[in-house]
C-alpha cells in the first residue's frame, strides 16, 4: 500500500489490523487506538481519500490502496493543511489524542460537504469522541476551515 505517498510493503499475519500495521510496521504513531468497538474514531485515517476507522480494517484489505495519516496531511514544506491550521487557531485540541483522527474525519467531511452547517459538522463528527474540548472548538475549527478553504480553493486539492 502507499502510506502518505510512500510505498510500504510487509508480510504480516492475516489478522493484523490496519492501525497496528501503521503503528508497528510503518512506524507512524500519530494514528491512535482509543477503543475496541469502532466507537471513538481516534484511529481514523483516509483510505483512498475517504475516512475509515483503521481499527476496523485489516491491513490486508488496504493492500494496493492509498492511506493518508495525520503525518501526511501537511504540505511537503510543512505547511499545515487548512483543517490543521483551523484546529490550532480555534483551540480545537487539548490532550491531542483524538486529534489526528478528528482532523482526518473533518477533512473527509469537508470533501463531501465543503460548506456544512454547525449541525452537519456535529453529525459528521459523531463517530469521533473527544473527552477534552466538549466539541465546541472542534466544531468552530471545522467551520473556520470550511470558510478558509472556500477562500483558497487550491488547498482543497491536497
Amino acid at each position, binding site marked *: 500500500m502507499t502510506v502518505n505517498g510512500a510505498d510500504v510493503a510487509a508480510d504480516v499475519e492475516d489478522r493484523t489490523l490496519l492501525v497496528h500495521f501503521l503503528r508497528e510496521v510503518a512506524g507512524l504513531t500519530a494514528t491512535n487506538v482509543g*477503543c475496541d468497538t469502532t466507537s471513538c474514531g481516534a484511529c481514523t485515517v483516509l483510505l483512498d481519500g475517504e475516512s475509515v476507522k483503521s481499527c476496523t480494517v485489516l491491513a490486508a484489505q488496504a493492500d494496493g490502496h492509498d492511506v493518508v495519516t495525520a503525518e501526511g496531511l501537511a504540505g511537503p514544506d510543512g505547511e499545515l493543511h487548512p483543517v490543521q491550521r483551523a484546529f*490550532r487557531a480555534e483551540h480545537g485540541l487539548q490532550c491531542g489524542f483524538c486529534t489526528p483522527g478528528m482532523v482526518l474525519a473533518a477533512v473527509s467531511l469537508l470533501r463531501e460537504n465543503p460548506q456544512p452547517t454547525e449541525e452537519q459538522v456535529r453529525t459528521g463528527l459523531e463517530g469521533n469522541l473527544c473527552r477534552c474540548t466538549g466539541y465546541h472548538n472542534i466544531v468552530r475549527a471545522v467551520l473556520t476551515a470550511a470558510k478558509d478553504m472556500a477562500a483558497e480553493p487550491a488547498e482543497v486539492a491536497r
Partner: protein
Amino acid sequence: MSILGTRVVRTEDPRLLTAGGTYTDDLRLPELAGALRVTFVRSPVAHAGITAIDTGAALAAPGVAAVLTAADLAGLPPAGDQPVTEPLLASGRVRYVGEPVAIVLTEDGYQGEDAAELVSVDYEPLTPVAGVDTALAGQSLLFPGTSSNVVGSGGQPAPAGAFGGCDVVVGRTFPNQRVAPVPLEVRAAAARWANGRLTLWASTQNAQQARDAVAAALGLDQPAVRVVTPDVGGGFGAKIATDRDTTAVAWAARQVGRPVRWVETRHENLLGMVHGRAQQHTIRIGGTRDGRILAYHLDIVQDCGAYPRFGLFLPTLTQLMASGVYDLPYCGSSYQVVVTNTTPVSAYRGAGRPEATAAIERAVDLFAAEIGMDPAEVRRRNLIPAEAFPYTTPGGAVYDTGRYEAALDKVLAAAGYPELRAEQARRRERGDVAQLGIGLSCYVEITAGDYSGGETSRLMVDSTGAATVYAGSSPHGQGHQTAFAMLVSAELGIPMDRITVRHGDTDEVPRGVGTYGSRSLQLGGSAVHQAAQDVRDQARGLAAKMLEASEADLELDVSHGTWMVRGDPDTALGWAAVAGQAGPGGLVADVDFRPASPTFPFGAHLAVVQVDTETGRVTLLRHVTVDDAGRVLNPVLAEGQRHGGIAQGVAQALLEEVRYDADGNPLTGTLADYAAITATGLPSFELVEMETPTTVNPLGVKGIGEAGTIGATPAALNAVVDAVAHLGIRHIDMPATPLRVWTAINEARARS
C-alpha cells in the same frame, strides 16, 4: 501591553497536529528495544475465591516468555494494612470484574491476547456485593476478618430541632451515579530495569507521586526509581499518580529481566481504571414559605468499589462543600463509605465537589417547587452576600472571594431568563409535545485543596538568552507549555519561542506535585511567576555591574527583553549578555510556592432543554455559564477548560452511567455500551466572562479545570425536571435518559 490575559494560541499544537503526540505506547526508544508485551488476565467474576491457577497451556503458547501470578509476589512489602489490602495481583480472592489475576509476557501483543485466554483459573463463587444497600446489609463481606463492609464514616446526624423553625421540609434520596472518566488515551506503561534502577514510562498526571508510590509498593528507595511521563492523552483525575496495574508492569519487568510495555484495551479501561462519583445522597432541606432556607442536611453513602482508594476520602470533600453558595443557619452532613464488588472509585473531574453541588442544587429546586417560588428567586434570597467574604462555612471552609449574586444576575441576563420562562409558559399552555425546561445551578468549589503541598518551579536563562522552565506540574492537555511560557515572557520579555517548558521526568524535576484538583496555574504558575521575578532580581544586579550603574537606575524593557540605564537605549543589554555574566549555569531560580490557603472559584450555569414528552428524549438547546476563577491568564485555555468541563457535567446529567447487574457483572464494559457524549449531544456553549481575583496567590488566579463540570450537572438535570414539572414531576434520577424521563412522564400521567 502585557501578554498576560491575551488570547495566545497554544505552542503545543503544531506537533500534536502533524506528527501526533508521543504517548506512552508511541515510544520507540532504544531502551525499550525487544520489550515484552504485558497482557493482564483479569477476573471475569465479581466475587470469588481462587482455588487454582494453571499456567501450563499459556506457557506453551507461541511467543510466551513468562506468566506471573500472585505466587510470584513474595518479597514485596505488605500491600496495605490487614485485613483490607490490595495486592498487585489477586491473592486467593477476586473482588471485581476486571481485577488483575495474572500477567502474560509475550513477544508481541496479539500473542499476549491469545495466551491470556489459555491461563486457567478456578474460581469458587462467593456472594457478590453490588450496590450500597447490599453492602450495608453486610450479608456478604468482601474482606475476611472484618465485621462489615463499611470502611469509613464521619459527620453527625442533624441535631434535634435543626429543622424546627421551618414552615416546609423536603426530603429525598437519589444517586449521584457512578461514571467512567474515559480519557481517550487508556492506561499505558513501559518499564526497564538497569543496574538495580527502574525507569518507568507511564501515562500519569504526576510523575513524582507515581515514583513515590511505585517505590513504596516495590520496596525500593526513591532514588532507585525514575518515572518519565510522555504526552498524556487525558486523565480527568483517573491518572493521578499510579495504580496497581501500572505498578505491576514495573514489577513484571524486574521478574523477567527484560524491558516490558503495556497498553490496555478500552474494555479493560472501563473495568480496570478507577470510576468516579458513586454516591447515594439523602437530602433534607427546610425553610420558610417566603423562600428563606433555614436548614439543610446531606447524608452520603459512598460506594468506593472493591478496594478503598481515594474513594475513601471523596465524601469528606463533599461534606466540606455541602452548603454551597448559601448562607445557611444550619448545614450538616454525615457519611459512610462501603466496599462493593465493583471497580474501585477515585477522583474524577471535581472529585467530591460535583457531588456536593448536585445535591444542594437539586435540593434547592425541590424546596422551590414545594413553596411554589421561582428557583432563581429562591437562590437569590439565600446566597452569601458579596460583603461577607472571606466567609467561613458551617463545614469549616473559608471562601476567599466571591460575588455570587452578580454571577447569578449575569447568567440570567445572558440567557434572557424572563423570555425563556415566557416561552415555557406558551408551550405549556399549548400542550406542546416539545416542552421547554430551564435549569439553574449556582456553585462554589475548592481548588488547590491540597495547597499545602505547593508546587515547584526552576527557571534557567542561559547565555544564549533562552529560558527553560522545569515545572513540577506536568500537563495532560491543559496547555502548561503555553501558560508557563507566557508567565516568563511577561516578566522577562524573553520571546515565547525562546522559552522551553520541561516536566514529567523525575530525574530532571525530582520535586513536584502534579496536575489535579485545578491546581496547576495557581500553584505551578505562581511558582513560575516567582522564579521569573527572582531571575529578574538577579539580572538587575548583574546588569548594574556591567553598566556600572546603580540597580535603582536600571530598567528592564519587557517589550524588547533588554536591560538599560533608565531612559538610555544605547546602554541596552540583552538576556544573553546578562545571563552570560552569571557563570556557566546561567541565571537560575528555584521556587517552591506554598500559599496560605486554597481558592474557591464560583459561578452560575443555566441550561435550556427541550423534552419530547412522547419519547422522553432530552435535547440540550443552550448552556449559558458564568465561571469566575479569578484573573484569566489566557482566555483560550480557560475557555477550553470550561467547554470540556461543561460537556462532562452535562454527560453525567443526561447520559453517562456505569452500570452493573445484581451479580456485579459490568453492563457498560465497552464504548458501544457506555454512552460517552458525542458532538451531536451538545450545543455550542455560551460563556459569560467574570473575573473576581483572589488574594491567595500573586497571580490572582483560581482553578478552572473542574468548574464547568461542577456547575453543569445540576443545571442540566434541573432543566429536565423543570421541563416536565407542570405534569407534577419533582425529580428524575441521573442520568435523565429517555427511558427514565418517559417513565416519569407516564407515571405522572397515571397519577393525575
